[in-house]
């Protein structure tokens, strides 16, 4: 395991008690590296003890002193001007301006890898999505030729984008080289929450103009902390291209991916969508569905406001302006199956949203309960808040190979969308993320998940199969946001909606990981 600096990406300078820690039960090796101090022991439990006992001299990381507020300010300062409003005084304008905070990829299994580095060869075992560039970068780090490094890809848990990178494998290789021993590296959960890859913080602005019953223009501008694409296309040539100085190479990846994935599939006249990324100091990456969740939320919330201005029902408005027949079909299907427009009690509401990506289209109807009796329900060591009580999701993914698998991916994406809307974010304070484990980072839990979920797989005569793995997130996130706005009468301006409330006491940063409890036998059930 690794003892990490108290500030994000801080570096280790020296160890004050190496001999004492090396003498601890089970401990075999202690090694100073730039990214931290590595401990090798018989069991991971003894690694935890040793990491907690280490007395290390640290140098601050690159975001020391920064917080959510300073990063939002920096992102706002980089925002490009929105297009000038039309001179015609009869043209009306609807605007939206939303902040999306950092969110952790947070796979269940933390970064881990086995590395056996010898004098003239290295063998790595890890769960990897880009093993070729991993091999090439590890060879660089070890001072070896590529053919001296063998990388074995092993089964791993869900990635959610995290395993496009190879952070654990690279660290394991360097630790093995430093110790001269084979090592099995596992990140502690606190490492994962605080130093793991995250979805960047960003702002999304929307400006729509309309005249009478027509939308004349729809401009959307996403400005965010950089999304790290330095894995390139999975090999060293494009990885080097993405790593050009000043973020220039990475910005090319960002522009390309944004342009290829984002679309406003409505007849809204002059439509523009732009992305601008700033600040390469954070550990980010492509989290499930990358740009679409935030972009869809901002767009669909403004769509609901346009509908309200024109005194139209949100479904009727979307059907009127929809320009894609497949999207019109999923909208009609989901509205019927989800009983769109049925009477809802005060404090509860429905929301509806669409998404088009991965050669497929989808629409989602949710019902949310934002009444105090639900919001304030008490569950120990948990975040409750508004509950999404029902989700109906229709997807046309073209040719479906595995309908049960497609349904499962939608169910999973639905829970991601709910988490992004209501509960899950990282809080940056004083140069580090406060979240230290699953009792701080509030991904959707059983008490948040909808008791009723219906996924409808649309029949299709298409020969072309679409994508499934990320296709459930954006429409759900947007539908939950729209439902929350309708239930409470207030359009949220930041996500997740509970971000301003810190729902936990932060764990210490020195030592950097918490000790395991000892009271497990008193808690059996």
């Amino acid at each position, binding site marked *: 395991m690794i003892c990490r600096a108290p500030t994000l990406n801080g570096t280790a300078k020296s160890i004050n008690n190496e001999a004492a820690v090396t003498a601890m039960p089970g401990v075999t090796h202690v090694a100073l590296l730039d990214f931290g101090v590595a401990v090798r022991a018989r*069991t991971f439990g003894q690694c935890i003890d040793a990491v907690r006992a280490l007395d290390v001299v640290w140098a601050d990381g690159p975001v020391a002193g920064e917080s959510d507020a300073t990063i939002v300010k920096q992102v706002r300062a980089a925002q490009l001007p929105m297009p000038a409003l039309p001179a015609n005084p009869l043209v009306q304008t609807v605007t939206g301006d939303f902040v999306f905070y950092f969110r952790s990829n947070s796979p269940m299994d933390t970064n881990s890898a086995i590395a056996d580095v010898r004098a003239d060869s290295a063998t790595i075992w890890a769960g990897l999505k880009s093993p070729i560039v991993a091999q090439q970068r590890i060879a660089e780090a070890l001072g070896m030729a590529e053919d001296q490094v063998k990388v074995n890809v092993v089964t791993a848990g869900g990635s959610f984008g995290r395993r496009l990178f190879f952070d654990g494998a690279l660290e394991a290789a360097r630790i093995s080289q430093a110790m001269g021993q084979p090592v099995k590296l596992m990140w502690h959960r606190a490492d994962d929450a605080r130093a793991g890859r995250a979805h960047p913080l960003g702002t999304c602005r929307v400006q729509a103009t309309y005249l009478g019953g027509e939308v004349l223009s729809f401009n959307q501008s996403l400005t965010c902390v950089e999304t790290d694409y330095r894995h390139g296309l999975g090999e060293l040539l494009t990885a080097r291209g993405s790593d050009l100085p000043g973020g220039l190479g990475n910005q090319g990846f960002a522009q390309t991916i944004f342009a290829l994935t984002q679309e406003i599939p409505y007849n809204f006249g002059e439509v523009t969508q732009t992305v601008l990324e700033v600040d390469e100091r954070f550990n980010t990456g492509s989290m499930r569905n990358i740009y679409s969740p935030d972009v869809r939320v901002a767009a669909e919330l403004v769509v609901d406001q346009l509908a309200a201005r024109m005194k139209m029902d949100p479904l009727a408005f979307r059907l009127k302006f929809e320009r894609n027949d497949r999207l019109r079909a999923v909208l009609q299907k989901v509205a019927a199956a989800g009983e769109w427009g049925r009477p809802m009690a005060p404090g509860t509401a429905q929301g509806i949203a669409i998404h088009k990506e991965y050669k497929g289209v989808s629409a989602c109807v949710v019902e949310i309960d934002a009444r105090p009796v639900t919001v304030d329900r008490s569950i120990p060591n948990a975040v409750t808040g508004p509950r999404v009580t029902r989700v109906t999701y229709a997807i046309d993914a073209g040719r479906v190979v595995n309908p049960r698998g497609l349904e499962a991916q939608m169910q999973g994406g639905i*829970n991601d969308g709910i988490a992004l809307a209501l509960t899950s974010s990282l809080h940056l304070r004083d140069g580090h993320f406060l979240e230290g484990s699953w009792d701080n980072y509030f991904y959707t839990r*059983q008490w948040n998940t909808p008791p009723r979920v219906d996924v409808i797989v649309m029949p299709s005569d298409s020969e072309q199969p679409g994508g499934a793995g990320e296709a459930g997130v954006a429409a759900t996130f947007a539908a939950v946001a729209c439902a929350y706005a309708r239930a409470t009468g207030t359009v949220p301006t930041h996500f997740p909606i509970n971000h301003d409330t810190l729902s936990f006491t932060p764990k210490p940063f020195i030592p950097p990981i918490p000790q395991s409890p000892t009271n497990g036998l008193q808690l059996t059930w």
Partner: protein
Amino acid sequence: MPEQTFILNGESVTVDVEDDVRLLWVLRDVLGVTGPKYGCGINVCKACTSHINGRAFNPCAVPVGDLQPGDKVTTIEGLPEAVPAVKRGQNGLHPMQEAWLARDVPQCGYCQPGQIMAAVALVNKTKREGRTITDADLDTIRNICRCGTYTRIRSAVRDGATKM
């Protein structure tokens, strides 16, 4: 080094390891029993959920020295043998595991051993209380699933409960 003795999946085991090492590491790192997964090490994610003397518990929060020689620890590996052969399904597994397979619950799979062990304990708890599983009971399951398989977990627990 102290000797630690307990019953693991029906067989008595003895290991040489310090008293304060948490049982999760004794199982995984010393005995090579890797069904109980590491997800937090502080008893909040529940990925290591197993059974002790028939009740759910989390080995990440139990020093191995707290175990008695007669304590029966059951991990996912030993779950099928925890029920009589007549109760096992077509794959020779515990009814809850069979329900999981029938409903194709797992996605990445990492949390699923803990989910199944928690599900069995929850059904046993409601049975002890003389009632059947409700939505409110399902809401109490604390095991995190980052893939968001909660919907199928809820249906599989209800299904498995009818066959236990």
